[in-house]
């Protein structure tokens, strides 16, 4: 049997990969992909704890997280499409029209 600690470490490492990607990538689409990786790390921790605690609340949280992640991806990508269509850039450090 695998102890719960291993799942915690895997979830933490995966979350930090997502943090790294979100903070360092220039492309907005890669930043959204990093957010999805972070959400998956949290989902893994919820499922692991639900399994080791004999409880279903973690599974419920995962269902709602996936729902909200779908809404977030749709909204974020719509904003990206609208930004690129208005002749701005798909890179975060080139979008500085509001800089004073």
């Amino acid at each position, binding site marked *: 049997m695998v102890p719960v600690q291993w799942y915690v470490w895997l979830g933490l490492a995966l979350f*930090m990969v997502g943090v790294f990607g979100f903070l360092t990538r220039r492309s907005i689409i890669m930043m959204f992909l990093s957010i999805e990786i972070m959400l998956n790390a949290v989902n893994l921790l919820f499922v692991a704890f639900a399994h080791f605690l004999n409880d279903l609340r973690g599974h419920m949280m995962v269902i709602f997280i996936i729902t909200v992640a779908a809404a977030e991806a749709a909204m974020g990508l719509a904003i990206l499409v609208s930004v690129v269509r208005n002749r701005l850039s798909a890179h975060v450090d080139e979008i500085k029209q509001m800089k004073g």
Partner: protein
Amino acid sequence: MNPIVFGYLAAAILLLSLLAVTNKNPVHAILLVIVMFFHMAVMYIGLGAEFLAAVQVIVYAGAILVLFLFVVFVLNIREETGGERFSSVWPFGLSIATGLLLLAVILSGKVRLGAMGPYTPQVIAAETHTKILGRVLYTDYILPFEISSLILLVAVVGAITLAGREDR
């Protein structure tokens, strides 16, 4: 779960996600993340969550990441133009992620499991995971369920408003 299976899945998940966040080509990165999500679905099956594994494959890999692929396709971002794929402040991002990881690993030694719930693997296996999840979802979690339907409605309306063409 067998430790060898866990080791393979963990190594594959970490390697695929690291390759994805450092990849130059967004299409390759999205495909790597899709493969990572399939490994995650196998992990869910190992944890006794078959319905969530199916949702992971259908909704995450099948809908959300295909939406990503469609946006890359629509915007025609084949390669990241402008050469540099990391922003100029990447050492800060790397040090923040490493520091948070160290802090979290130190604190993860303090993890204690709380009180056990009533849903042992035997109970779930006797009544099947999907059925038991549906019963809990439509009784105890009916209000969050309704709210999530509203969130999806707002996302649909908002996405059409933001991305739709003005001249039509």
